[in-house]
């Protein structure tokens, strides 16, 4: 799929606007995970906007593509995108983590809201995606299963159990996407539990590996398209991203992995993102 420069800029602005929603949700909740929500939002938004076959008016549609946010702590990112594409009312976003809200701190299954399965305890969502992919094959359905994984999440043993099973069963309808921002809760992924050489690990497990610049929209779209046209093996897209991206003081740090901004920080963050939006719109 070729996209024009104008479309690319519109997507960039949308992503920045969604980042503002994410920050507002977490700031109002005064808890949550801004760093890993900001990093992966481009992937989730482009999946829902440009790649997946879904229908917010028919969330039970049998032939829909499936998205599983295995890194469930990025729930604000998922909720904000589901709001943008019509599953969740915008005003409900700001009930995140509040008593009685449907929008729990981590995703809880609610098909009407577009949430396929509960996630948050890391590693589990990825193995669930294996079952979805096997079931789709069994039913001869031409549908894709997308699972978004954090890089820290790859420490979990079940990730590698699932990786073995996916290539064993030649699940070419399964696409894993890794938010490779390099930082987990306690620090750098390479300091805590080294992942590199990550691409080689997935290759050794029998996967088709695509590496992309996750901040480049064309790169993301091309990556997904290549993945969707891979046969006889599953694909993993290792997407190099920046933790806390587009908010200067949240970038490349573990500090905002699980810490909300205070009022002053929130306002600075919004100002920074607004400046970027204006810069892009000035170019439009």
């Amino acid at each position, binding site marked *: 799929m070729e996209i024009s420069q104008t479309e690319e800029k519109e997507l960039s602005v949308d992503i920045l606007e969604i980042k503002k929603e994410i920050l507002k949700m977490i700031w109002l909740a005064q808890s949550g995970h801004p760093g890993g929500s900001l990093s992966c939002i481009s992937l989730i938004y482009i999946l829902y906007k440009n790649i997946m076959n879904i229908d917010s008016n028919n969330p039970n549609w*049998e032939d829909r593509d*499936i998205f599983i946010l295995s890194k469930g702590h990025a729930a604000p990112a998922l909720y904000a995108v589901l709001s943008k594409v019509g599953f969740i009312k915008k005003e409900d976003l700001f009930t995140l983590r509040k008593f009685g809200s449907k929008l729990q701190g981590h995703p*809880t*299954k609610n098909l009407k809201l577009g949430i*396929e*399965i*509960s996630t948050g*305890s890391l*590693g*589990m*969502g*990825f*193995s*669930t*995606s*294996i*079952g*979805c*992919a*096997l*079931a*789709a094959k*069994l*039913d001869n359905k031409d549908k894709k*299963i997308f699972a978004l994984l954090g890089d820290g999440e790859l420490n979990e*043993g*079940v990730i590698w*159990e*699932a990786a*073995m*099973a996916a290539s*064993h*069963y030649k699940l070419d309808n399964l696409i894993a996407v890794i938010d490779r921002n390099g930082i987990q809760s306690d620090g750098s992924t390479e300091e805590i539990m080294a992942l590199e050489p990550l691409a080689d690990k997935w290759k050794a497990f029998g996967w088709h590996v695509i590496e992309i610049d996750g901040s480049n929209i064309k790169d993301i779209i091309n990556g997904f398209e290549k993945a969707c046209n891979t046969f006889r093996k599953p694909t993993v897209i290792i997407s190099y991203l920046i933790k806390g991206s587009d908010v200067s003081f949240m970038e490349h740090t573990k500090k905002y992995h699980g810490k909300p901004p205070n009022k002053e920080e929130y306002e600075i963050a919004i100002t920074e993102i607004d400046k970027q939006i204006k810069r892009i719109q000035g170019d439009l």
Partner: protein
Amino acid sequence: MSNIPARDILGKFLVENGDKYENMVVLSADLSLSIKTDIFAQKYPERFFNFGIAEQNMIGASMGFAISNKMPIVCGFSLFTTGRAWEFIRLACHDNLNIKFVTTHAGLVGGDGSTHSALEDLSLMSCLPNLNVLVPGDNVEIEKILEYAFNTPGPFYIRLPRGSLEDIHKKDFTFNPNSIDIIKEGNEINDICMIGVGSGSSIAIQSVSKLEKDLNISIKIINQSVVKPINIKNFISRIKNDKCILVIEEHNTYCGFGSIISRIVSENCPKYIKTLGIENSFGQSGSRIELLDYYGFNYENIKKIILDLIKS
């Protein structure tokens, strides 16, 4: 049917019902030969999935099948399924998914020894909301419970032994989770109500005539295959007139069925209860006869416990 191991009953049930339950898929973690799901795999290879020795991924994948409108039957050893992959089962129950966890090798497993004995699984499973926890007392009941579970949406844990269970029901037995299954009627008021869970029911049956005769007491026996959810009203109505209760279960006495029922009885009609189970141990290797005897599932010990109960 009493000589047929429980796992053979399971394997036969699955293969005979493959056409009836078209959405059924059977999952294994490299134990299809041990659990006899291999015969399903031979007849329905497209609906059988082996995940290798990876219980966590097997159960994670079962959740994916369930949200894709399949009915996964997750088969494994009781310990590895409930222990290794507990949090995956928790999440399946959290989302109230239509998954049937059917395990074998529960209780005192025999030669495999302490590392393979599942004496804690009822504790692990009974605390999970939404989960139905069922322990058939004999082969007739295994089939009836499987049929009930397959026809009832939601998560189920069905606990089976490795070997065979003695017959306690007639072939026309029907399973109703709300009715209390009295397998030996007593008097209007009984000195003892013995409550068997799984093999505990046949252990109770085997000793009851001699106990009644030797101790000159009246005994009623309930086969309690429903560990959760218990129909408390019906249960209490059937035990309220009995003086004392003895629970018999192949499970750790900490947080097994005895613990569950002690709470329910103490809250609703307090009376003395004792549990014959495994006391704070992981089990050990040995023949089944040796193990049952060592852990006190024998006539003399049951008699001693009942005498203590009567004195109390």
